[in-house]
């Protein structure tokens, strides 16, 4: 069986190789801090396997994460000169290669789809090929590796160091923002252990006047969005808001259809996700990947959609649940 942990080791190994390249890159004024950040990230990816399986203590990894936060947070990481082709060379190469360039890029989704559909649940000698529940993650991994092979063949690129170097430049350009989504996931779990959710739930339940179903619908939906805005994750908001309002008031009290209330409630939370820097993987990482000057560019593009869509959710729930 092919396990998702193997795939995390591969990513860890890529980070480590890149860390060695960074250490040797004398064009980077902060090469030691940069190499330390990505090296720790690589080691963390591999060590985490045993943390997840409860076979190793989590504390060393926690220390490593905090060191990475300090390295990134105090500007001790940087980037080297990007050694790549000029824009003229790229134009020339695009003219020569034409649409063949799309083949490797499209290999990623094609392989990912095959893994998620055809290979899913397939067995060889009584064993499933892909670990159950990880088919899409593994599909992305296989897709990327297959695309790299296809790409190197089509482009007649012989040196494996070239794609690693190019990938490293993209990573260096993103910098510490890479770690932010995982840090936020940690913050979310600390919030729930410390009982932040229950507190917010109590406050919202207190502002709720009794007996007015449609007001309760609005409070539930807006509460989901606001709570998600704070936590960065609708999944963290859902159990709390549902326990405070969704289940007792809307479903049991007012007799709402649980399917509509819960499905639309979750989507109301997604409207909050569109607007928060706390959901870094959806909102901040794209800004760095696209090399935007304004880190909040994607959020600004999404807010005018999120607000009317939240209103739509309130209307949909009001009409169909009761």
């Amino acid at each position, binding site marked *: 069986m092919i396990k998702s942990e193997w795939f995390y080791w591969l990513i860890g190994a890529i980070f480590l190789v890149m860390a060695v390249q960074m250490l040797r890159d004398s064009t980077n004024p902060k090469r030691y801090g940069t190499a330390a950040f990505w090296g720790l990230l690589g080691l963390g990816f591999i060590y985490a396997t045993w943390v997840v399986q409860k076979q190793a203590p989590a504390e060393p990894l926690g220390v490593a994460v905090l060191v990475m936060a300090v390295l990134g947070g105090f500007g001790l990481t940087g980037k080297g000169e990007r050694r790549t*082709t000029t824009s003229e060379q790229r134009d020339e190469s695009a003219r020569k290669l034409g649409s063949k360039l799309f083949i490797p890029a499209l290999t990623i*989704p094609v392989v990912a789809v095959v893994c998620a559909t055809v290979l899913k649940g397939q067995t060889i000698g009584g064993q499933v090929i892909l670990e159950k529940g990880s088919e899409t993650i593994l599909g992305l991994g296989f897709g990327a590796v297959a695309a790299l092979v296809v790409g190197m063949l089509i482009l007649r690129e012989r040196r494996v160091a070239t794609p690693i170097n190019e990938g490293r430049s993209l990573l260096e350009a993103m910098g510490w923002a890479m770690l932010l989504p995982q840090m936020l996931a940690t913050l979310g779990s600390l919030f729930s252990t410390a009982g932040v959710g229950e507190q917010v739930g109590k406050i919202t339940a207190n502002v709720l006047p009794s007996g007015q179903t449609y007001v309760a619908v609005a409070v539930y939906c807006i509460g989901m969005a606001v709570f998600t805005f704070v936590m960065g994750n609708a999944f963290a908001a859902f159990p709390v808001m549902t326990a405070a309002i969704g289940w007792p008031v809307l479903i049991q009290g007012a007799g709402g259809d649980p399917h509509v209330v819960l499905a639309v409630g979750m989507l109301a939370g997604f409207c909050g996700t569109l607007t928060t820097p706390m959901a870094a993987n959806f909102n901040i990482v794209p800004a760095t990947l696209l090399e935007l000057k304004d880190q909040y560019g994607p959020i600004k593009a999404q807010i005018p959609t999120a607000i009317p869509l939240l209103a739509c959710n309130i209307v949909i729930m009001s009409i169909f649940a009761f």
Partner: protein
Amino acid sequence: MIVLLGVAVVILGFALKQNPLLVVAVAGIVTGLLGGLSPQQVIAAFGDGFASSRSVTIFVITLPVIGLLERYGLQQQARNLIGKLAGLTTGRFLTLYLFIRQITAALGLTNIGGPAQSVRPLVAPMAEGAAERRYGPLPERVREKIRSYSSSADTVGLFFGEDIFIAIGSILLITGFVNTTYGTHLEPLSLAIWAIPTAICAFVIHGYRMVSLDRWLARELDAAVAKRETVK
């Protein structure tokens, strides 16, 4: 009540534009300690959190091949391609991408798009290319806006498509939570169909805003083009 201080740290930190990594680390430590965890438990929580959230970082696996293709002109070729499709304006192209992203996500194919896999190498260059064909070189501010809108089409399409698919995390979270907490039995499929009305609204609203981007571009750039012509 006092545990809410951690939330205050986050809001204050982001408002004062402090480095987000530090803000989040400090907020986590404050919340953990106020919530009654020992310092050792707080450190362990950072380790556990990192370990169990690695899946959000897996897009890194695609960066070497994307970087390689960019080196050989993938973004330029994406622009060339859009240049041949005369009717496809920036707004129409992004609406089309939004639609494709929603439909594929609804079929459970959430990983075929994304900021690293599709937006940076293909969608953003094509959206820019469509505007360049019409208005020539784009000012920085316009380029930023087109890229931001490209990213938003990807995210909105994913969010309001994936919930229609029954085996997606959020639907399973709903059934898992209410079935264990309240002892009911909700079927994923009967939940997933109720994601459809919102999905349609999301397409209409965000699609309308994508098409409005064309009007904004026209207002913003027609003047610039006219100015260039007179200088000639």
